[in-house]
């Protein structure tokens, strides 16, 4: 299908407008209704950037009332490493009056407001922003014609953005054809007509708005690997596949569902299966049943579902059965804010269940890490015969990022169960070694087959009420997790060797934390940023780093609790008995803004400069230089 008016190449159009201004990165927020296909604009931009040399990170929210509710998509595109979604938008595109009213506050002063002139009347004389009226609806209807009404507005806007930011129109065109290719030709043609109309519109109307991203520093970009683009839940699902996980079970719940949907579709291609169960208890049980046959399996959920799995997790610790449990955190407790982000399941992940239940909790730092942490989780589960929880969150789950394509040939793990014969010295629960179960189907040389059990047991798995054995077995279960802690690498720590403040983050706060560090150091504060992916057990030796800073400020997305400290902060304080460990917490259901972390650090340091500069600072700008 050839478009009747294929957009000219950026080189060709540039001569019509002023020369583009060079920018490092830009935050664009689009706001409309969910049926407007706003998410797909974001998807196209993300994939375009993934195919170019631009790093991309997107931020999106889906309203709880999925249909018709207000929908936004925020994308930050830039050159080089993009660490966070950006605090405030440089450009806001609004489709309706309500979108305008709800989101104008997110546009920074000096930013660009693009509004659909057919639906929106912005406040007159508001000279904080550059206001640009674009007839998005009529433009789309005129371009597409026929009966399709204003369907295609999203593609029109995509064309507009492609032109304004000098994106590769041909590549976008190819992506659109790829996306709609399966549908009939009319759909592809209409999409291309809308795209071309949007792309052409600025030419005679917006001479000033023309930007180009700085050239990528090839030295940094040249990893030699192509970039792939996906959201955190996909990265996690494919990480599990690379990790040799072929079995799983789950029950749907936002924002975990898309992982189980992916695995349900994918596992059969690899000879495995994913079972949709009647509830979360059945799901964790079925996954443990797979493990009993030697096939490490995954289950997962979000907060409420993780609570349901707790009794079974206690069993898994006692029976020393490996399992990977994914928990995609959302706002809680209860149904809470199911489509918002929070890090409030940490304590339930580490300590939920009954009795002493040492186990492993990992938290990915970004979308790429969702892939790698899944592989690490599976490795640890197998090696230590233990449950491993992956604490990701709503922010990571649905955010799209581009990252270097993993070298799969080096990463793929063989999924075959070890059904080899067990020797005559086989014991299911040896005190001096890590348990290696003899899966069902394997022959046991002693002729005595093991019973895996939730009762306290002796080395052969027989139930026991012996106080001595309970002490020994409790220590055994604890010590293997301590051994894992001792084997972990020192966490990533960047910045000054010593100084005023050590910012500590875990999970998805890595990016905002890293950007906050840059700002804090720019204000002449001696600071470093430590990020923990292994939240339980902790790597050894953190206290040495802690000692070198006046304050250790932990930024986390949960409540300060009764005693004034976030969940991870509480653990660190208990573990290191260091009163200089303090918190920056919040519970608004959104990811951290860099300014919020900087201001929080400022409050703890008693620094007015930081407290104020954090609030004012912008991380990117469209302003003319």
């Amino acid at each position, binding site marked *: 299908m050839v478009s009747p008016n294929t957009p000219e190449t950026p080189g060709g159009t540039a001569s019509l407008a002023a020369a583009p201004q060079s920018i490092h990165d830009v935050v664009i927020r689009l706001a409309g209704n969910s049926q407007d296909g706003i998410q797909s604009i974001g998807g196209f931009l993300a994939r375009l950037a993934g195919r170019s040399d631009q790093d991309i990170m997107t931020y999106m929210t889906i309203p709880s009332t999925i249909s018709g509710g207000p929908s936004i998509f925020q994308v930050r595109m830039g050159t080089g490493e993009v660490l966070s979604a950006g605090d405030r938008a440089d450009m806001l595109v609004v489709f309706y009056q309500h979108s305008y009213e709800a989101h104008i506050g997110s546009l920074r002063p000096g930013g660009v407001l693009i509004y659909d002139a057919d639906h929106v009347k912005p406040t007159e004389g508001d000279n904080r922003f550059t206001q640009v009226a674009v007839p998005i609806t009529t433009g789309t209807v005129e371009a597409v014609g026929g009966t399709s009404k204003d369907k295609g507005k999203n593609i029109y806007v995509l064309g507009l953005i492609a032109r304004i930011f000098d994106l590769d129109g041909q590549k976008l065109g190819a992506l659109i054809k790829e996306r709609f290719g399966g549908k009939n030709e009319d759909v592809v043609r209409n999409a291309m007509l809308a795209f071309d109309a949007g792309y052409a519109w600025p030419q005679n109307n917006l001479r000033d708005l023309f930007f180009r991203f700085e050239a990528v520093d090839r030295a940094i970009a040249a990893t030699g690997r192509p970039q792939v683009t996906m959201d955190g839940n996909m990265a996690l699902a494919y990480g599990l596949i690379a990790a040799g996980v072929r079995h799983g079970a789950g029950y749907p719940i936002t924002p975990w569902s898309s992982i189980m949907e992916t695995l349900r579709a994918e596992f059969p291609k690899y000879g495995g299966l994913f079972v949709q169960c009647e509830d979360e208890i059945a799901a964790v049980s079925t996954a443990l049943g797979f493990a009993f046959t030697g096939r490490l399996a995954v289950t997962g959920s979000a907060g409420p579902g993780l609570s349901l799995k707790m009794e079974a997790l206690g069993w898994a610790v006692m029976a020393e059965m490996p399992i990977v449990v994914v928990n995609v955190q959302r706002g809680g407790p209860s149904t809470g804010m199911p489509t918002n982000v929070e890090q409030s399941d940490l304590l339930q992940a580490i300590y939920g269940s009954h009795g002493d239940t040492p186990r492993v909790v990992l938290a990915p730092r970004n979308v790429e890490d969702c892939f790698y942490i899944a592989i690490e989780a599976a490795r640890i589960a197998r090696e230590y015969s233990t449950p491993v929880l992956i604490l990701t969150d709503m922010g990571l789950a649905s955010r799209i990022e581009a990252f270097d394509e993993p070298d799969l040939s080096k990463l793929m793990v063989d999924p075959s169960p070890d059904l080899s014969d067990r020797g005559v010295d086989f014991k299911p629960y040896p005190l001096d070694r890590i348990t290696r179960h003899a899966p069902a189907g394997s022959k046991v040389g002693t*002729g005595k087959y093991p019973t895996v059990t939730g009762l306290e047991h002796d080395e052969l798995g027989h139930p026991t009420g012996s106080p001595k054995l309970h002490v020994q077995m409790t220590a055994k279960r604890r010590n293997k997790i301590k051994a894992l802690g001792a084997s972990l690498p020192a966490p990533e720590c960047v910045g000054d060797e010593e100084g005023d403040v050590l910012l500590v983050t875990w999970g998805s706060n890595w990016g905002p934390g890293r950007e906050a560090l840059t700002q804090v150091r720019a204000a002449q504060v001696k600071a470093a940023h430590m990020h923990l992916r292994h939240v339980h057990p902790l790597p050894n030796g953190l206290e040495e780093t802690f000692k070198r800073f006046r304050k250790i400020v932990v930024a986390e997305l949960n409540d300060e609790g009764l005693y004034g400290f976030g969940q991870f902060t509480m653990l660190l304080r208990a573990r290191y008995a260091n009163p200089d460990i303090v918190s920056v917490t919040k519970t608004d259901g959104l990811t951290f803004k860099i300014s919020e972390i900087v201001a929080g650090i400022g409050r703890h340091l008693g620094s007015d400069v930081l407290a104020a500069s954090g609030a004012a600072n912008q991380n990117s700008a469209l302003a003319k230089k």
Partner: protein
Amino acid sequence: MTSALATLPPPAGAPLTKKILTADHPTWCPGCGDFAVLHAFYRTLEKLQYPHEKIVTFAGIGCSSRFPYFVNTHGGHYIHGRALPFATGISLGGDDLHVFVFGGDGDGFSIGGNHLVHTARKNVRLTYVIMDNSVYGLTKKQTSPTSPIGFKTKTDPTGAIDQPINPMRTLINSGATFVARSHATQVNHMVEMMLRAAKHDGFSVVEILSECVEFYEGAFDASIPRKGGTWTLIDEKKNDGTPEDTLRHDTADDIAAFKLAQQAWPGSFGVFYENKNRKTKNALEAELVVKAKERTKNASDLAVLQATFSKMR
């Protein structure tokens, strides 16, 4: 001291005998009906002669759920009420395994009631033996979902008031593809039911009335002839064309099975219902794998994942 010979494993290929299959000595009260169920299970396994390592004996929590410790096979003692979903993972994970799940009436019909319905609906290939004593044994005499109205327990000191469930009706309704009922005082009958259940390709359930002599003595006397009760066997259709055959029970007929389940206490024993046509979840999942592998042209795992990543460039 045991001789070295006694601790040696049996030679490969030796038939599985009760002696080999016996593990820990049961912890049940003397006279508990569960002993007979265990004995019947040994005999069933002796007849089946499955490879030793392919047999799994699994359970939840309860007196009856202690079962796996007493059977020398791969096994597990899980949490209360959730043995069926765990066993679903075993059955689907190791398709060549022979999975037997044991448990009580509380484990199966109360805390595990929803799992029972869904395991039946999915027709997962495994055999489930419910040892029904109409009481909570392990926790010492509370009302169970099969306790009859009026039965005095610690939680109903003046007698149970809630309508008990009818296990046969519940099971037939759940979609289980093999439903049978037996009695711990009838070892041969138990063996026959367990054998047929094991050979059934699908989710097979045998409910066995198994007396708790400690907390509900005499619960099932009405079905024990030597205690003055009546033992009524289901007369199954033989399809021999005789006039009397028309009166016999057609196990493929769920309505007839339902009617049989409505009989007054103590009712009949035998196979109530059997559906040989419904595909198992095991088979359906295997078909999905075959289809998916056809689509990928049997590409290696690495090739499939690489192709997926290439599309996301």
